[in-house]
């Protein structure tokens, strides 16, 4: 009787692609809940819309490419792209911004490169960058203001839906982000004056700090579950802090480090976006360099760039560099004297 021969490894983890994607999606839930609680239902509507569009776009292209539909839809990668985009976009942006960003992310950012695992760029950030470049007005003024600002009402579910789909009444609930406000106002006022503004509400940024802390918690859960390693988030946050402490030490001239770390998309970017296993660097040292690069770029673009936030551009630029970084940070293979590095060795290709 022929016995079934099993080769090692005999014990293996149960991590499949769909499991990983589902875990990451679940880890965004605290952030989503806090955002909804503090900023109204806009983000929730965005996430649902983005997920629906992402699934439809994925199914459509898979059909055209004659790939098995169920197999690829069930890896939930399109779902995750939709969730991340929904979280990243301004909560009360018009519906077509979300649709264009998501469809572009899936069709151009992912499927045209060959689908899951072949995309050189983070699809969600490609979609985000597209709409940020194309619709600057909608992308910078449709951020929901938080409930901690007493003089404005919070967008309820119905308000959010009507604002997003008809565009009416947006002004009642929206404004610029704290990062944007600080950058523009600091040139002719002092830090103490700015902190009295309702946008900043004391030491922090009216609600944004809780959203970022929620993403931090979700991110730490991912590190704990070993879905991601610590290298990229730590390197990115460290580089961003270092830059803003050393270069922007004066809060009367530059955005202080607390705002850099706890407003905008910093924590979402550090734990959920920069760590994308497909488009990020993969070697441990490479991850450190990659993360630090994202952090530095985020600081540079936020401080001297024209756009209010920079996580999307920082991540996309470092995505470009990731293969190069990987080629030069190959670890030594056991049994070999030296690591084979550089673009000429076969491993690099």
């Amino acid at each position, binding site marked *: 009787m022929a016995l079934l021969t099993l080769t090692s490894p005999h014990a293996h983890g149960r991590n499949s692609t769909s499991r990983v994607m589902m875990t990451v999606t679940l880890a965004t839930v605290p952030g989503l809940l806090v955002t909804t609680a503090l900023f109204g239902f806009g983000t929730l509507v965005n996430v649902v819309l983005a997920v629906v569009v992402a699934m439809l776009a994925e199914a459509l292209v898979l059909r055209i490419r004659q790939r098995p539909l169920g197999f690829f839809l069930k890896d939930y990668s399109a779902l995750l792209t939709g969730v991340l985009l929904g979280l990243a976009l301004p909560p009360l942006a018009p519906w077509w911004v979300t649709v264009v960003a998501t469809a572009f992310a899936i069709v151009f950012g992912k499927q045209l490169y060959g689908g899951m695992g072949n995309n050189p760029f983070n699809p969600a950030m490609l979609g985000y960058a597209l709409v940020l470049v*194309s*619709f600057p007005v909608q992308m910078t003024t449709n951020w929901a203001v938080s409930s901690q600002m007493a003089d404005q009402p919070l967008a309820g579910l119905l308000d959010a839906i009507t604002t997003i789909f008809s565009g009416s009444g947006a002004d009642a609930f929206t404004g610029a982000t704290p990062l944007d406000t600080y950058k523009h106002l600091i040139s002719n006022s002092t830090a103490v004056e700015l902190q009295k503004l309702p946008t900043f509400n004391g030491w922090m940024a009216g609600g944004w700090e809780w959203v970022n802390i929620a993403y931090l918690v979700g991110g730490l859960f991912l590190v704990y579950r070993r879905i991601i390693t610590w290298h990229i988030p730590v390197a990115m946050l460290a580089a961003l802090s270092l830059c803003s402490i050393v270069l922007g030490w004066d809060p009367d001239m530059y955005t202080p480090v607390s705002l850099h770390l706890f407003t905008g998309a910093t924590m979402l970017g550090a734990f959920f976006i920069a760590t994308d296993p497909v488009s990020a660097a993969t070697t441990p040292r490479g991850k450190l360099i990659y993360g630090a690069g994202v952090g530095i770029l985020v600081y540079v673009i936020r401080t001297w760039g024209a756009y209010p936030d920079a996580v999307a551009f920082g991540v996309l630029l470092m995505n470009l560099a990731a293969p190069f970084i990987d080629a030069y940070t190959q670890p030594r293979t056991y049994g070999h004297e030296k690591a084979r590095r550089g673009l000429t060795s076969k491993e690099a290709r």
Partner: protein
Amino acid sequence: MASKSLSEISLDGLWKNNPALVQLLGLCPLLATSASVVNALGLGLATLSVLVGSNFAVSLIRNHVPDAVRLPAFVMIIASVVTVVELLMQAFTYELYEILGIFIPLIVTNCIILGRADAFACKNGIIPSMVDGATMGLGFTCVLLLLGAIREILGQGVIFSDMQLLFGPAAASWKIVLFHDYPNFLFAILPPGGFMALGTLIAIKNIIDERRKEAAKAKAVPVEVTTESRRARVTGKIS
């Protein structure tokens, strides 16, 4: 080389060897000026006339210029033709000339023109050379127009705006607003949008070529019908 018929030359320029879709020549002006139909048509027509003119002149002198100095001679000819076109545009379509700006004089450096002069006109007679120049230019103009239309619709939600720059004041009313309250989609007007639209056009052309090749193959090999092996079943018994 010289045995190519005029229709073959035309097919080459318009489709099989299209300068923009297959040779990928002259991408810089192609992407820079294809944000609207009127810009695209302006540059396309300018390039077309330069191509016809330079191919004609190069073909005329092809037996009198030694090979060693042919390239400088071609460049002189092309530069003169471009200057003529530039002056004509200044005279008749001044506003469009202002909009296209540097890209009109830059036609001199367009690889299509020197390419056709060196690859075709200096080896062929006057008539084939002019047909080659015209069809290559037409192929280029068609792609430019298509790109311009796509980018204008996507970018601004209108088509045929500002046509009076090229066709006189009567054409001002040609503008068609396809979507009212269209939020300008800046990406389509910016260069990356041009690259993406061109890539899509190339992909579509490749798909069409592939389909036609497969259809031709299916037609070329007749389906063999072998009557002997066909069995008509009459009863339940299979013999």
